[in-house]
């Protein structure tokens, strides 16, 4: 199995501060940070009417498909994707080739402002994730003790049944 992607308090706080600032400064509606395998890392903004788990999975799928298109064209990847809707638009960009930053915005702001603020946030996030990825493999899974899998097994038996 691949080494688990581990996030600790300190890094997570920096990520959340950066995302919160991006949300305010860009005047966007929602900001999400998603692992390229489709798992949501963090979200900011009003997600009460948004299925953020599904949104994260589809964003990652979308980004993966577009990256594959770029490779067919002989490019490394498209670093930015933009989907324009009548009311809502989506801006997607990549951080350290491993994580994607998704900004959902409406006509209260502009693509130019979103792009400008995203660029600044990408630099900050890039530093955090460089640090996180450099620690992968060096840090043990603290907190998961030996009884974890036995407790998990009984929970699995309890929930996953007809």
């Amino acid at each position, binding site marked *: *199995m*691949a*080494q*688990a*992607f*581990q*996030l*600790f*308090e300190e*890094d*997570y*706080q920096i990520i959340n501060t950066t995302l919160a600032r991006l949300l305010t400064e860009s005047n966007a509606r929602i900001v999400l940070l998603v*692992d*390229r*395998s*489709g*798992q*949501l*890392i963090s979200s900011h903004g009003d997600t009460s009417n948004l*299925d953020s*788990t*599904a949104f994260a*999975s*589809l964003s*990652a*799928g979308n980004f*993966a*498909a577009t990256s*594959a298109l770029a490779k067919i064209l002989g490019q490394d990847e498209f670093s930015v994707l933009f989907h324009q809707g009548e009311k809502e638009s989506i801006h997607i960009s990549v951080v350290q080739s491993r994580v994607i930053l998704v900004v959902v915005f409406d006509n209260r702001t502009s693509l130019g402002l979103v792009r400008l603020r995203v660029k600044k946030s990408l630099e900050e996030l890039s530093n955090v994730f460089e640090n996180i990825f450099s620690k992968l493999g060096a840090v*043990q*899974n*603290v*907190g*998961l*003790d*030996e*009884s*974890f*899998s036995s*407790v*998990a*097994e009984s*929970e*699995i*038996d309890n*929930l*996953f*049944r*007809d």
Partner: protein
Amino acid sequence: MSLINYANKEINCKIVYYGCGLCGKTTNLLYVHKKIEGGTKGKLISLATETDRTLFFDFLPLDLGTIQGFTTRFHLYTVPGQVHYDASRKLILKGVDGLVFVVDSQVERIDDNIESLENLKVNLRTQGYEFDELPMVIQYNKRDLPNVIPVDELEKKLNHRGDPSFESIATDGIGVFDTLRAISKLVLADLSKQR
């Protein structure tokens, strides 16, 4: 690659259902979605063609609840089985923690199953994984059909690693949860082994 967030105490794992076209991968997810209680499951997303063939993937998030303080979630994905969707299939394997290989047990599909298993190994390698290192469960599906290959023969042809295997009739739900329980346990056992 599972995501462990120590700050907000979350563990997310990705399980991918793989196998040849029409072997029953989506049917597995549909049954799980139908039977699991509301609070445990998220919305089932299907990116399918007009004829209900999987075009990109199906996605079903399951919430196991809190285990030792960690909110633990499984994200179930299927790949498109048809041969010509290989480029899409590869992408779904990114970040996979465990595999369910669904086999169409019918005599005439044996070559398709073998080809799909070989294709899985190749595609894992392109995503930087070693096939032998990933937890996997094999599901011999469509056992209710008249022209199926005996299980011991399928084991010889497809289960070279000696992985746990289950007979199933996914349309009726038989074997679906046995398979899901087995792979979920293997994935979490693997995760705690890394500590």
